[in-house]
């Protein structure tokens, strides 16, 4: 089958790629654009290693066919930092050792980023719900929750206000 030309925005850059119709967004990112942050952990929508942000929402990129992403705006873990300045979530993950092998981290960060964009003062249960689709075989998740709490606090301070402090 002929390749399909698609256009999409990735980490703020407009990209044009030619992909086989069956290719997933995950593999478009990894293979066509060399963005190997998002990982292939199961390719069946179960593990969350491939999570990226599409139009503001966290999605399992292994479950999205590349042509479906036509015209959308995608953000991957590589797009979280502003230049050399890490996003507070990235800093909090590093400071709290919210990873061991690190293979789940890009997906975990994307899920948490989506949560904090939409809710900068999440309860512990909301954090748990946000990462319920992200497997981590290493950490037992405690450090991840701690990191998200720290990042949320920092983000609220940075924004200079909050729903309720």
């Amino acid at each position, binding site marked *: 089958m002929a390749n399909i030309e698609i256009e999409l925005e990735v980490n703020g850059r407009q990209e044009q790629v030619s992909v*086989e119709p*069956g290719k997933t967004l995950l593999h478009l990112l*990894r293979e066509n654009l*060399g*963005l*190997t*942050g*998002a*990982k*292939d*952990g*199961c*390719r*069946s929508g*179960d*593990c969350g*290693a491939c999570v990226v942000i599409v139009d503001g929402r966290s999605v399992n990129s292994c479950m999205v066919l590349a042509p479906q992403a036509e015209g959308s705006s995608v953000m*991957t*873990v*590589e797009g*979280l*930092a502003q230049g050399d300045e*890490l996003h507070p979530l*990235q*800093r909090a*993950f*590093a*400071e709290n*050792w919210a*990873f*061991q*092998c*690190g*293979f*789940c*981290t*890009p997906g975990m*960060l994307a899920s948490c980023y989506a949560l904090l964009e939409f809710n900068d003062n999440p309860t*512990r249960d909301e954090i*748990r719900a946000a*990462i*319920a*689709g*992200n*497997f*981590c*075989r*290493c*950490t*037992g*998740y*405690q*450090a*991840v*929750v701690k990191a998200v709490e720290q990042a949320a606090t920092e983000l609220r301070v940075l924004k200079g206000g909050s729903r309720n402090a």
Partner: protein
Amino acid sequence: MRAKETAPGRAIPHESASLHVAGEATYVDDIPELAGTLYVALGLSSEAHARIRSIDLEAVQNAPGVVGVITAADIPGVNDCGPIIHDDPILADSEVQFVGQPIFAVAANSYTAARKAVRLAEIDYESLPAVLDVATGRQQQSFVIPPMHLRRGDAEQALQSSPSRSQGAFSIGGQEQFYLEGQISYVAPKEDGCFHLWCSTQHPTEMQQVVAHALGIDFNQVVVEMRRMGGGFGGKESQSAIFACIAAVVASKLGRPVKLRLDRDDDMTITGKRHGFEFAYDVGYDDDGQIHAARVDMAAQAGFSADLSGPVVTRAVCHFDNAYYLGDVAIDAYSVRTNTQSNTAFRGFGGPQGAIAIEYIIDNIARQLGKDPLQVRKLNFYGRDERNVTPYGQTVSDNVIHELVDELESSSDYSARRKAVAAFNRDNEVLRKGLALTPLKFGISFNVVHFNQAGALVHVYTDGSVLVNHGGTEMGQGLHTKVSQVVALELGIDVRRVRATANDTSKVANTSATAASTGSDLNGKAAQDAARQIRNRLIRFIAEEHGANLADIEFAGDRVSWGSGEIAFDELVVQAYQNRVQLWSDGFYKTPGLSWDREAMQGSPFYYFSYGAAVSEVVVDTLTGEWKLLRADILHDAGNSINPVIDIGQIEGAFIQGMGWLTSEELRWNEAGRLITHAPSTYKIPTITDCPQKFNTRLYQNHNVEDTILRSKAVGEPPLLLPFSVFFAIRDAIASLADNRINPPLRAPATPEAILDAIDALRGEHQ
């Protein structure tokens, strides 16, 4: 002395922290691909046991995108990748031994093309009788290695004379490693018949060896490089070999770079898992609950080949005592051959399976006597000066289990919560709570003495930056961070100046697997030895050059000082270089004092023991079998921790992983021998929703009595035993339905189905 041994502070980042959070940490699949790379898919057996009559791969060969196909006949060297016994074919040739065994490999221009082509194969099988479960294999005396027997005293006699007996059976399932990064190998042919292999493996040296054997070339023609794994947990110790070998054979035949990355389903279908065990036991005890004799028959599901079953089952035998003195002992252990995946290493390596059996028995004894299980546990703990020799003849000389459990009992408020649980259960018919405190003792060292060695290289460059390379592999356990800390401490410099590099068989040779929790014990010591030699040369240089007194020279804070003067570390190394002082060194370490007689199953196989304990509280819905872990409290002994943040992470992670093994992770095979739980949709590893809201983990203040690296203790595997407390809390909740008088026959994993079965059995007996 203590202060000096303490590692340099807590706020040390993970050596790759900034890479991980930026998505820039490179795993094998992220390495930029070489031009001409081919992708491999595997053709797998659909039969559990059969003779292969014929293989027709013509359609496969002619499929679009296919560049080459290989079968066993294409292997130029030996068709075997077994780690100990040579019964592990790389590709099955005349006979298949389990559903999922690789028979051929297809290399194509894309994974999709390779995968599509695989389906076009025509394989004609002639079915042979298959053994699909342990009981059948045990009955048929179908073993992968000879049975093992351990005896102390006369267990038979002691059982006869014991006032009471606990007799029965207990079964425990296996566990899929579910490393988040699946198995992967990437091989590039190099000049002069050499190969470079990037492989997600815990054992680069063994990969080098098996690839060389498969290709019929020398070890020095294969370089294996391994920067980091996305998890290993034992599953990438021996079982990365088959994929490395297949990729290498394809690369050698086609002369192209070859990548073999498994789909999750194929990975789970092909690779071995934690061994499931069946136990039959007979234990004699007195009216207080003290054990006088134990006889146990343990049968492990080895799968179709030996792989690491020998050492795994040995470790199970050596951990049946857990933290208890058992009197006279008779253990018979069988590694049962079944027509299933060849089971292998998984964090704990048989230790957890052996130890949970005695915990189950002690739990029984307590209920039979109407006591709190914790009392009976304490009563049977190894003594300090007597009752302190294990069934395999090693004296337990570093015992802290009494103090540790006492501390946890009070910090977790055990007795008040025991009462509260009883009160809750009096008021609730359907929801029942359970509470349990379980201890652990775990022996550290490889059970094979000669594996307990390690090497390292340390280079100090003339700008004062340092590079360390050692024989261990990084799989998330923080090994590179700990080793870097050790080197930094030795040279008195900031850890940020030390870079740990990829394990590489062309740097440190003949390494052991990063396994048995020994990674930092062995490699930390080797790196310390290397750094110390450089430090000693620098000391001699300063003494000569600056007339310093040897004893006054100190390395700290990126400076070196002596009574009358001091110098920045980077200036010193320039001076030393200009004076022709060697600024790099190798280092070596071998663990002292180990012995093991495999036949008699006697000796001192462990350098020391780690200890820990956990309290778990659960609530069980006795109508549906659903349950929830409400709270967990852990106290664990990591000795003088090199890095408390790493160690606590290891403990929390092991606890949740072990809880998965004992509760939600169930392996099921159908009547044809096909693993039906071969994907995360059917095989349930814990997610955040399974974790307790209250989860308190603390390190026990301790100091290794042995001269280990900075007096720390290994922490990789031991905490996998902590979630025994979850399993026994569930059993405690169930037992409350019959006033804690009857022992619920709960199997592991305690899935809701298993819980309901136990409840039914209990009610049946109660009436």
